Structures are given as C-alpha cells and as structure tokens.
C-alpha cells in the first residue's frame, strides 16, 4: 500500500478522492448505508455537545427560580428542558451544577476523561486530562486561572470541584453585563465550553 500513501503534492485532493472512493465501495457492497456517515456525525453536531450545556445555562440566566432548582437538583432541572435523552446522567452518575456569582468562582477539574459530561459540555480540550493542569488546578487555582486570562479578585473565593464517576460537575458562569433583553437563544450562543468548566468568563456580546 506504500504507493497509495506517497504524500503527493496535492494531498488534500488525493485524500478526499480516496475517502470518496472508499465510501462509494463500502456502500456498493452494502457494508454501510448511504447515510451512515451523516447519521453518526449528526450525533456530535446536534444531539450531544456543548450546545446542550449552553441551553441549560441560558435558561438559568433568564429564570432565577430555574437556576435555584438547577443547583439544588441538577438532573431534575435538566430533565425539565427539551434536550435529547440521556443528558441528566444515568443512575449513579449525577450531573451537578455550581453557580458563579459575585462571591465565588468555580473551577472544574476531572481525573478521568470518561467522567467528563461531554453530551452536555462537549468534548474536553486536550490539556484537560494533563496531570500538570489537574495538579496545579487543585494546588494553585488562581495562578492557573490567571494563565487562562481569568483574574479572580482576592475578595472572591475560588472553589475547585473534582469530577468523578459519581458526580460530574459543571459551572453556571456569570451572565455578562449588557445582555438585558437578549433572547434565551442569543444568550446560549455566548456560552462556551470553557466557561462551563470555569476556565473562562462569558464575554459580553460585541456591539
């Protein structure tokens, strides 16, 4: 097969042609369906991903009673929303929300990627499982946050939460200023996965 992977000049076009040909043959032989690729990718694009967490956060921003319920009983509050099945966690694996406010900034770390609630938060960044990040996140969270561009004033407490197989934490970030009157959908578009991990703040919308 070596000549097939000879890295020609037009690598992208060659790879694209190979993938197209491979897919066509696999479909022709009945090994996959004509919509198989789209079906599996749709899962990441519309079913499980950070857009679910963003919807939860936006609802908490516009509805203070919902925010209270979300912190008190996260799976039940998530189940109130019209999200795909499975976002609330299976038995024994509970999602738990912690809210940032004027007194507290929350940071989530995670010792196993299998514990990361990515149907809600999206796929974790590559550094998230890095032992140095995790160790420093526990020992000197303010320094780690500063490196992410988040300076937490000394008057504000920093709480660090370690996700486990039993509890998967996520952060309800603070709603940015100048967002009064924005729709829930527009607010959700401001929420990033990093903000739900506590390593970023939600930026105000650009004027």
């Amino acid at each position, binding site marked *: *097969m070596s*000549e*097939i*992977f000879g*890295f020609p000049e*037009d*690598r*992208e*076009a*060659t*790879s*694209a*042609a*190979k*993938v*197209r*040909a*491979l*897919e*066509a*043959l*696999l479909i022709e*032989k009945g*090994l*996959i369906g004509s919509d*198989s*690729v*789209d*079906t*599996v*990718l749709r*899962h*990441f*694009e519309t079913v*499980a*991903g*950070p857009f679910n967490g963003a919807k939860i956060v936006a609802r908490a921003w516009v509805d203070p009673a919902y925010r209270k319920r979300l912190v008190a009983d996260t799976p039940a509050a998530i189940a109130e929303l019209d999200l795909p*099945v*499975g976002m609330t*966690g*299976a038995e024994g*694996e509970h999602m738990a929300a912690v809210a940032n406010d004027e007194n507290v900034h929350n940071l989530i770390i995670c010792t196993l*990627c*299998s514990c*990361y*609630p*990515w*149907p809600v*938060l*999206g*796929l*974790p*960044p*590559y550094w*998230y*499982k890095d032992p140095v990040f995790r160790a420093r996140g526990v020992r000197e969270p303010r320094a780690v946050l500063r490196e992410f561009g988040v300076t937490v004033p000394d008057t504000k407490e920093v709480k660090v939460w370690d996700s486990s197989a039993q509890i*998967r934490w996520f952060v309800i970030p603070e709603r940015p200023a100048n967002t009064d009157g924005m729709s829930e959908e527009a607010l959700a578009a401001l929420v*990033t*996965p990093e903000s739900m991990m506590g390593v970023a703040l939600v930026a105000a919308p650009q004027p």
Partner: protein
Amino acid sequence: MFMRFEEYATASMLGEPDSPPRLDGKLFFTNRWERDVFGLALSLAKAGCFEWEDFRQCLIASIARWETMDCANQPRWDYYERFLEALVSVIESSGVLSRAELERVLTARKTASAIAS
C-alpha cells in the same frame, strides 16, 4: 451518562495518543473528507466490521510511524491522513475489503482525480 457507540468510541480516544482535534467542545474538521473518514470509521465499527480498539491501535501505530520519520522526509503533520491510513489498514486486516479491492478503488480514483485536476 448514557453511552451510545459514537460516544464510547470518541471518549476512548480522549487524552490518548490518537486523540482527535477538537475546538470549542466539538470535533474539528478542516475539510469535508476529514469529517467523512471519521464517520466511515465509526460507521464500520458500529456495524461490527471491526473492533474500534483494533482501529485505534492501527491509528496509534500510524501516528508513531510519522513521529519516527526523519525530519528530512517527514511530511507536514496531518491527523486525518494518519486516520485514513489506519482505516485502510484495519479494513484490510479485518477482511472487510480485500487488498486488491482497496488498491483498485484507491489508485483508480487517484488517477481519475489527477486527470480531473
């Protein structure tokens, strides 16, 4: 957390040498063919054509081969090129397609695309 095959497969790569590129919590594809080849690998494993772990070992090996190339001959890093190489390898080793079928379809289209361009 409920676990669909798509989630199991992707989660198994996170934090490992074959971890796929991602941005803002989503898989990151630069070109359409990258999305397609990712979907092909998942679809075939989901259909039972090979074990996902066998594909992953091929991918890890393909990445390792790139890493040990000497600098003068090392092509620009391209995760999905390694991914495609690994997929072809596992398709052949698991007998999903024969070597002849693979060579025919891949080289034929290469010629066709070379003529088209």
